[in-house]
């Protein structure tokens, strides 16, 4: 069992845990996480804790290692160093599939949908592990097949309602417009009933009104499903608007952590984004 004291020591800056999460266990505790690719250290000494229903942001310049952090959390890459505790459980030695079953779901920066499947089937893939019938039930079309498929259909439609996508259920995922594809990815991730949802640039390519709508929906998802959300995003309006805590990554290291207000006024963050101020200015 992880020692709670060590956990507090290992997180250098105090993490922002919203009041409603006090007394609940943290959903994610990451300490000293790091990965090397050959001689290159892509992420180093990454520490972060996320409350059970917290919305956290991970920002930083391009190439800072943000997506690599997501890949480490979901075990697309196995970390070189550090520990990841998910609901207090160490994920060392797990693969992507097991991590998902333990409760992390994600979306991808470059959208990864099942293009030739329908929107509904994409969501049903998310529901796959919660459906409970065998291959032979399916081949022989036994009553269990019909029952489970019907339940999955209803569940999928309910999930699609979050983004008002029910009427697209029979369209091919690959034929959807960009914004709808991003939303579908979120729905699919939610269908795996995660405890922590990782969103990799959810607003990329969206127009301001779509982004505003997305912000509302992120909060709505948190409230409805009572889950934690961690997002990577370049749209500062969105990050500052929905995130309760933010970590800033630069060159694979966290350079600042805090509430949106603290981050906005942090000189190191401004430097990372805008470059150092010249003497003569």
């Amino acid at each position, binding site marked *: 069992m992880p020692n709670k004291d060590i956990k507090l020591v290992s997180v250098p800056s105090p993490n922002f845990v919203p009041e409603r999460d006090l007394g609940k266990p943290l959903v994610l505790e990451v300490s000293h996480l790091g990965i090397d690719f050959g001689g290159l250290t892509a992420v180093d000494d990454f520490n972060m804790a996320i409350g059970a229903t917290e919305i956290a942001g991970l920002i930083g310049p391009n190439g800072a290692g943000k997506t690599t952090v997501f890949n480490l959390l979901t075990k*697309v890459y196995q970390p070189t160093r550090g520990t990841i505790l998910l609901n207090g459980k160490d994920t060392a030695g797990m693969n*992507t599939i097991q991590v998902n079953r333990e409760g992390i779901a994600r979306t991808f920066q470059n959208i990864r949908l099942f293009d030739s499947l329908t929107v509904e089937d994409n969501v049903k893939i998310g529901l796959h592990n919660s459906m409970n019938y065998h291959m032979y039930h399916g081949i022989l079309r036994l009553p269990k097949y019909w029952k489970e498929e019907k339940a999955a259909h209803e569940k999928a439609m309910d999930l699609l309602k979050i983004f008002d996508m029910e009427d697209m259920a029979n369209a091919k995922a690959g034929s959807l417009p960009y914004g709808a594809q991003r939303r579908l990815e979120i729905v699919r*991730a939610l269908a795996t009933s995660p405890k922590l949802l990782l969103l990799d640039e959810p607003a990329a390519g969206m127009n301001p009104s779509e982004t505003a709508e997305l912000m509302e929906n992120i909060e709505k998802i948190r409230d409805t499903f009572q889950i934690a959300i961690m997002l990577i995003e370049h749209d500062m309006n969105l990050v500052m608007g929905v995130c309760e805590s933010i970590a800033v990554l630069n060159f694979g290291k966290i350079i600042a952590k805090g509430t949106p207000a603290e981050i906005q006024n942090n000189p190191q963050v401004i430097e990372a984004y805008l470059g150092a101020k010249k003497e003569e200015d």
Partner: protein
Amino acid sequence: MKKHTKNSFLNYGIIILFFVIFQTLVSTKHISNSLQGQLIPICVYIVMALSLNLVVGISGELSLGHAGFMSVGAFSGVIVSTALKHSVENGALRLLIAVIVGAIIASVAGVIIGIPVLRLRGDYLAIVTLAFGEIIKNFLNVLYVGVDAKGLHFSLKDEASLGLDIATGTTIVNGPMGAVGITKISTFFSAIILVIVTLFIIQNLVYSRTGRAIKAIRDNRIAAEACGLNVTKYKLVAFVVSAALAGSAGALYALNYSTVVPKKFDFNTSILILVFVVLGGIGNLTGSIIAAALLTVLPELLRAFSDYRMLVYAIVLILVMLITNNEKARILTTEFKYRLKIKKKSIGNKEVSE
């Protein structure tokens, strides 16, 4: 009704129609001998194409050794059928047992091959399936099996080392000469049943939880893993089901001839089946059925060209590929379809306005 349900029924319909037409032609003797002889092979190749489509089209992996599974089914089917000749007198029942055993042994081969192979991707997977197909063929070339009162005898050396009892012994598999002295028990009807069972299994599998997972893995492996799908398991399921169906087709095929040689199931046969799948449209089951049927009889139909028929076959194959896959040709056909649509619409509008 959903589109895929309609398609499923269309496929059953095609097969039943095919059966009714040709059964009528056979019973009224309006069919040439050579074409009648092709009826069972057509069904067998339809099953082969459908099962390969499960791997190539639905699971998205290129397999170049499908004939290998067919041969495993063929030889185990023949061994079982000959061994049971006296204990199971009923031909239909013996055929059923042989087909099931063929399917089981082929699926075992599928598991043995699939577990290491499915870790590889793309062309590497293709070349390893090719290699396995060749290994199976080579192995069958040195396999000797016989049966006598004491039971089955196996050898990898020669016929003599089987040590068969002279009075009661029969050689079943004789190395490069293949399976010999087979009693023909396959019938057109049983072949049609096998096609329908194959369609039933594949179609119901594809439109179930398992099939959905297989297709999702094909579309995007990484996303499938992120959704908690066990990628290796579902790839293996597709591969093994496909192998089992190929094995059953192999058994039915072998029991339609008096001798079957291992060379019959070489690389060229694997390629031939792949051609059916690709020409019929990858992932398109109706297409596989039609392509397998037409291309099995095409060399017969091209008999008029005698020596040139395989050359013509090759040219037809190249031309079809060029026409169906060329960017320019595709644009032209889409444009044509679009115009047709507009025309229909404008006709429809006129009717409304009048």
